């Protein structure tokens, strides 16, 4: 249940048996959601933070007239609202983007981590910092990249993030998110997402089989996207 999360934070540093045992105890209550289902509402102050254990979730802002912006994609091992522990009120909603499972980690347990496990506390801080780096990259994509580069960039990022938590192999993964939701994430119309994916397929940069995305030549896709993975890893402490 905490496999993906452990795999992720172990990239930052070692996790002791005592720390693992504590995490296993606090990540217990799993909730299942279907695509489009709300996990937490904007403006609420939930007493826990959501950790994705399988599938995809997203942070979303909704404007009047049904306009929606998906602000980020959360994959297994990602917290959706770790900031809620400190800020209390969450300024976005959280929604399932595919079938997904969420562990709700009580804020009291996060408080325990900060008081008893300094190394784990730093790992959570690191996770928040990487999350912010991903958001900066997202903004750069929204503002500067063409749709072709933007989608290529996200597909590269997803490959690395999913590989890090054991949900992708060397060049493929499942991305069971509709083109309509991808449009909400990219700030593009569904038609343009479809058109752009078609162009990526025609140029043999991706192959899709149902929800499976296969990247025949990862280096070629990275080149098209101008993808530099440094923001995803940071520098692990010596």
């Amino acid at each position, binding site marked *: 249940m905490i496999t993906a999360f452990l795999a992720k934070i172990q990239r930052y540093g070692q996790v002791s048996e005592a720390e693992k045992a504590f995490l296993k105890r606090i990540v217990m209550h799993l909730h299942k959601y279907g695509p489009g289902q709300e996990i937490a509402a904007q403006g609420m102050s939930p007493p826990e933070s959501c950790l994705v254990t399988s599938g995809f979730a997203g942070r979303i802002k909704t404007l009047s007239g049904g306009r929606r912006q998906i602000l980020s994609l959360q994959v297994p091992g990602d917290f959706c609202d770790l900031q809620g522990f400190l800020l209390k009120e969450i300024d976005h909603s959280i929604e399932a983007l595919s079938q997904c499972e969420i562990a709700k980690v009580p804020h009291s347990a996060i408080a325990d981590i900060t008081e008893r496990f300094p190394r784990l506390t730093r790992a959570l801080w690191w996770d928040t910092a990487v999350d912010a780096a991903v958001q900066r990259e997202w903004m750069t994509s929204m503002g500067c990249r*063409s*749709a*072709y580069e933007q989608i290529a960039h996200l597909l590269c990022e997803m490959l690395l993030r999913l590989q890090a938590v054991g949900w992708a192999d060397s060049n493929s993964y499942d991305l069971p998110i509709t*083109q*309509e939701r991808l449009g909400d994430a990219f700030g*593009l*119309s*569904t*038609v*343009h997402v*479809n*058109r752009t994916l*078609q162009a990526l397929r025609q140029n043999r940069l991706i192959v899709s089989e149902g929800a499976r995305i296969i990247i025949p030549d990862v280096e070629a896709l990275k080149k098209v996207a101008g993808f530099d993975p440094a923001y995803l890893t940071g520098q692990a402490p010596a």
Partner: protein
Amino acid sequence: MPHYFFDTCEDGHVISDEVGLELPGIEDAKREAARSLADLARDVLSSSMKKREFAVEVRDALSKRILRIVLVFDIEHEPPV
């Protein structure tokens, strides 16, 4: 919900949509076509281009064309005085 297809034409060259999209009605299809044309323009328009014409054609599930939105890009220089 009815199914609509959105073909893109760039200077007469048609890129046919084989996936399509389910939308509540024709007004939504029109909005989607207009937005997609704006997205396309953002990606491709540049000051180094000659006159270009882009269009999105919407077909219904029976492949009948129901509307077409055209966007023309042209730079007109004033003659030197």
